[in-house]
């Protein structure tokens, strides 16, 4: 029996903690308050974000793997967790003009992984902002 010709999707969960404030320069103070509610608090607030990175591909016959987990952990550790953990998202360049909602965070993380992680195909990014809210992004023109 061969077990190596089928495609597999591998998902790894990571966690980081960061603060943010939802505020748009294009809205009046009243609009910001009505749109973002408590999230518009000028001092910011934080979350324990859980990021799920899903990659896919054929399973390598020699290793039994879609990609080596050490490569994925190394990339995400260096490029995502070091970048976002214990940071204020509003101060990072990608959120200078973009509101750091978890939707936009999904897109930012997807773009970093898509551009830099070349050991497997990126299927998508899923982020849990809290246990009650989660967001998924699989790139443009998908699903």
């Amino acid at each position, binding site marked *: *029996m*061969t*077990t*190596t*010709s*089928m*495609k*597999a*999707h*591998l*998902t*790894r*969960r*990571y966690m980081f903690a960061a603060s943010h404030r939802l505020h748009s320069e294009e809205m009046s103070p009243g609009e910001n308050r009505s749109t973002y509610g408590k999230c518009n608090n000028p001092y910011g607030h934080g979350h324990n974000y859980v990021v799920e990175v*899903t990659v896919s591909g054929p*399973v390598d016959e*020699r*290793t*039994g*793997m*879609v990609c*080596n*987990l*050490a490569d994925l952990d190394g990339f995400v550790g260096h490029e995502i967790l070091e970048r976002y953990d214990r940071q204020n998202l509003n101060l990072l360049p990608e959120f200078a003009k973009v509101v750091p909602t978890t939707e936009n965070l999904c897109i930012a993380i997807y773009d970093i992984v898509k551009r830099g992680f070349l050991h497997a195909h990126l299927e998508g990014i899923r982020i849990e902002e809290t246990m009650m809210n989660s967001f998924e992004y699989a790139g443009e023109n998908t699903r």
Partner: protein
Amino acid sequence: MIYLTRKAEFSAAHYYHNPDFTPEENRRIFGKCNNPNGHGHNYTLEVTVKGEVDPKSGFVVDLRQLKDVMNREVLDGLDHRFLNKEVPEFFENIPTTENLAIAIWQRLAPKLNQATLHRVRVYETPDLFVDVYGEQ
């Protein structure tokens, strides 16, 4: 189309080793998982089947039958086993979570007759899981 997911748990031991690699390559590629004495996990299996709802029973699949198939085809052979030494799929293939999910797909797909297998998900730990959909 309705999708139904049944969960199960099993515990098993494994280690990663390719006899075609040198000892150094095995250690570099597989890291701690290369320890030949093995280590174990509490795996969680999620089996998702899909199909139309039977108008008489209201079921997409008889859950008792699905549970019996999962027990007979998968859990009886994997639970509390050393995968490399006791499970034929892994006498030659490396028992990674990817290959485990594929082996479970191959065991279940031909045995389900009421509904079609949609996805096999295997959690090795709460932070690592693999999905297969039977795609080549």
